[in-house]
């Protein structure tokens, strides 16, 4: 199973095994990683699962789709070039070792 690592705003590091096809948001929420709120449950409707993707993985993760792109304009924390909504990143073997930093403000 591919692994994904989360850095919380306070520096706490959590590494979890991912089921292929589950989103980076799903995996965090189900395992109780704090800081990812994800109120809408992954339908790209709330912008409360904002993460910054590690530079090394930016190309593999790809760019935000048009709806997500608009949602990212409304996030509570600063939008950066590496900003993504973690509900829209589906885990695959190619993303094994993915590292994301959870945005400090979500709501």
């Amino acid at each position, binding site marked *: 199973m591919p692994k994904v690592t989360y850095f919380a705003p306070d520096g706490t590091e959590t590494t979890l095994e991912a089921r292929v096809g589950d989103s980076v948001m799903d995996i965090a929420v189900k395992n*109780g990683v704090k800081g990812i709120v994800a109120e809408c449950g992954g*339908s790209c409707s709330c912008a409360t699962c904002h993460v910054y993707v590690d530079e090394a993985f930016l190309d593999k993760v790809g760019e935000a789709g048009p709806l997500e792109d608009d949602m990212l304009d409304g996030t509570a924390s600063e939008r950066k070039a590496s900003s993504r909504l973690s509900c829209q990143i589906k885990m695959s073997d190619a993303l094994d070792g993915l590292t994301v930093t959870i945005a400090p403000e979500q709501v």
Partner: protein
Amino acid sequence: MTEHILIIGGGQAGMQIAVTLREEGFAGTVTIVGEENHGPYQRPPLSKAYLAGEADAETLELRTPQFYVDNNIVVIPSEKVVSVAWGAEHGVAVTETGRELPFTQLALATGSSPKLLTCEGADLEGVLSMRGLDDADALKAQWDSISNIVVIGGGFIGLEVAAVARKYGKNVTVVHSRDRLMSRAVGPVTSDYFLDAHTTRGVTVVLSAKVTKLHGTDGHVTGVELADGTVLPADAVMVGIGVVPRSELAQQLGLEIQNGAIVVDEHARTSDPRVVACGDVAILPHPLTGDGMVMLESVQNAVDQSKVAAQTLLGREVEYHAVPWFWSDQAELKLQMAGLSQGFDQQVIRGNLADDKFSVLYYREGRIVAVDAVNDVSDYMAVRRALTAGQNIPADLAADSSVALKTIFTD
């Protein structure tokens, strides 16, 4: 007895109370008891991605089983609480298996159940509703044998199921009792747009219709008869005509009830200060204006009100003022709503309906109160932010669709 909080109801709200209690450091016992044969899971995808085969039951889990173990939250599935009462020092709930669950404080997150048809034929096989995983599975089990499906009720769930069924090539008819779709939740412009959108995609929509009888053969539904005598052929009937709060236990406790729902204050407290209630089962003061009582059957309310309920159980005075928001995915259209538009006296339409990307802003006495947005995330997010911050978006400025709403906030 040591502190023991019992949460009756294993849905989104029940789970959220337990999680917040632990996040806030509650050290006593926390038990969630629910009658469904599953741990807490997400309901919204049932009529969307799950029905469409894009998500499985494991995807819908709200937390892993291990999470509850790690957080010392006892989850008891598949047991229905049949009675609850206070003793001299603590209360006891009893499940239908006879199990006794003692508590010092109680949270009622019992949710709602689908309103059922009362006409002749309502109990035929093939007449379904959409509330839980089992309901969605029942529909999926019949899916391949369905050519004609009649959806009774043109609200979110009905229209979501209609959109998925149409995508799979079924003949779909939506029968709605009101003169416009989703009439409780969105304004007329949005209703009319979705009527066109579904009709264009091949769904037949019958408005202002009354179902008088379901026809059947060998115990299975075959048709839906309307008051004008029309009989719509149906291999399956999906009933989505609203929900009924499950307040039976609250009634046993003598709690105040209104419209069948448990009356709570802005702290999610019931008329008994030892009992909180939240989610679909509660009727609450309007969270933004405090003016009048509202029922908010949504994930947002289940989550946010439950957080407040948990704080109340911990003896803290937190008030519930979250901005209500909702969403619905129908075909490739993303409908997002924030605020409550009821009673609006002015509206501003931004963008073009013909482009399938627009928003409708609702005003009361010159102040923004709500938005319906279709494929327009920017406007949805902007209005949600303005409402959260207590700011206004002047209607005259918003009328220029080229202006980004977030640049014109005022006090």
